[in-house]
């Protein structure tokens, strides 16, 4: 699915589990990819808008139904009917004949309230518009691969599909699995934070990758379905931990599209663990996320600055006469940045 696949597994069934994972991702890629010319999804997309119902396999049927449920649950913010928008922005997959499909690219988007698919009996689907299952497809592949590994009785395993991760059971040291949250401004550098997961999945929607120039402007792959345009909304990345990897994908993208102004409120209302990086590089998170976060880079840097030597030489970081009772990670990071800029 265009992603690096990796697995850590414990016990004698590890080799067999890896074979299952590879097989599952190959099958999911054959069913759900929009880049592979012979994929089932490409065939379905080619008949979008014609009213013709196509017989599809279980994986594609499951994926389309899940996508439609995600559209309903997220109030339409998650919507896979953005294939035309991605193609119009220059991210091309396999040819599905968009130019012959009326309204596939430029349209009034009145279809937003309509279901994604009409099921004509079990195993038959009909689309009004072509879809891109993208990250959701990868999340589903992770779900299915994890289920197959569990059926083999593997004591503990981690599957990493290009940054979307699912863990089950114990880590190799019999503790929890530790996952780093990538810095979208420096993907190969130190992570922004490290979290510990127990029987969870974690997914990130980020514009740190898949950005390109189109007609003189920078664009990326996280499309707002209401506008058909890339979402530049004050966020660089959103990470969500969920039991199910497919829904972790759905919520990371949905919260990303909420934008920097409202993501805190929406994430708090929704509950669960979510981390997000604002476009000024500040990492923020929900209360549930904080409880599973064991290390935050900004906090570690602040600890270094206000250590034994810095405390006596930096009056700006001394205890004020009216100290706040509570300092958030972002406050601490901002303080550290101010201290660094004033000393540098």
């Amino acid at each position, binding site marked *: 699915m265009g992603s690096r696949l990796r697995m850590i597994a414990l016990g004698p069934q590890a080799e067999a589990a890896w074979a299952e994972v590879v097989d599952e991702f190959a099958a999911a890629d054959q069913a759900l990819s929009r880049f592979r010319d012979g994929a089932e999804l490409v065939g379905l997309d080619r008949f979008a808008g014609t009213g013709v119902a196509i017989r599809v396999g279980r994986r594609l049927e499951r994926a389309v139904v899940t996508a439609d449920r995600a559209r309903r649950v997220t109030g339409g913010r998650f919507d896979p009917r953005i294939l035309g928008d991605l193609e119009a922005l220059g991210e091309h997959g396999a040819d599905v004949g968009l130019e012959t499909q009326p309204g596939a690219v430029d349209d009034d988007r009145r279809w937003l309230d309509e279901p994604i698919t009409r099921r004509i009996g079990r195993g038959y689907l009909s689309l009004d518009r072509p879809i891109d299952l993208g990250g959701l497809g990868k999340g589903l592949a992770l779900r299915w691969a994890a289920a197959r590994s569990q059926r083999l009785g593997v004591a503990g395993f981690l599957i990493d599909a290009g*940054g*979307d991760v699912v863990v089950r059971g114990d880590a190799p040291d019999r503790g929890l699995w530790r*996952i780093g949250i990538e810095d979208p401004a420096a993907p190969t550098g130190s992570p922004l934070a490290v979290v510990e997961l127990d029987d969870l999945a974690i997914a990130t929607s*980020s514009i740190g990758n898949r950005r390109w120039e189109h007609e003189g402007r920078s664009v990326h792959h996280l499309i707002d379905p209401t506008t058909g345009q890339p979402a530049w909304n004050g966020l660089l990345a959103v990470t969500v931990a969920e039991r199910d990897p497919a829904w972790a994908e759905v919520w990371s993208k949905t919260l990303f599209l909420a934008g920097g102004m409202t993501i805190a409120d929406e994430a708090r209302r929704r509950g669960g663990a979510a981390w997000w990086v604002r476009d000024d590089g500040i990492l923020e998170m929900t209360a549930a996320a904080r409880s599973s976060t064991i290390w935050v880079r900004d906090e570690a840097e602040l600890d270094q600055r206000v250590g034994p030597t810095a405390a006596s030489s930096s009056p700006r970081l001394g205890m004020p006469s009216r100290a706040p009772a509570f300092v958030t990670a972002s406050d601490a990071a901002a303080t550290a940045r101010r201290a660094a800029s004033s000393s540098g």
Partner: protein
Amino acid sequence: MGTDTRRGLHVGVLVGVSTVTYAAVLAGVTSLQSASDAALISARDPIARTVASVASDHDVLERRVGAAADRYSSVAGEYASLGPAIDDLELTLDLLAATTRRVGASAAQLPARVALPSVRSAPGRLTAPATHAVTGASGA
């Protein structure tokens, strides 16, 4: 003689007729009076019932007023018994206010900043702990 006989007869007839007429008129008047009395009684009947109902309600109201008066007397007695306790509470509040004023005055004399000695802390590790994976931009 014959004339006297007829006169007597005429007088008798006249007296008889007058008597009958009087009796008839008396009977008519009595009948009219009876009908009038019956109509009057019939017209006054609802008023009588209403008066009786008002009297009954008045009795109920009187009983309630009596009960409320009893309750008021009881509450007034209890309130009167609380008087000393309220006085004690007010006295305690006055003492508390005086103590608060003294604490405020003492606090105002404290320095706004206190120089704390340097403390050797154990700063958090600058490098990230080892991880099993990293989540981030996937490219898919």
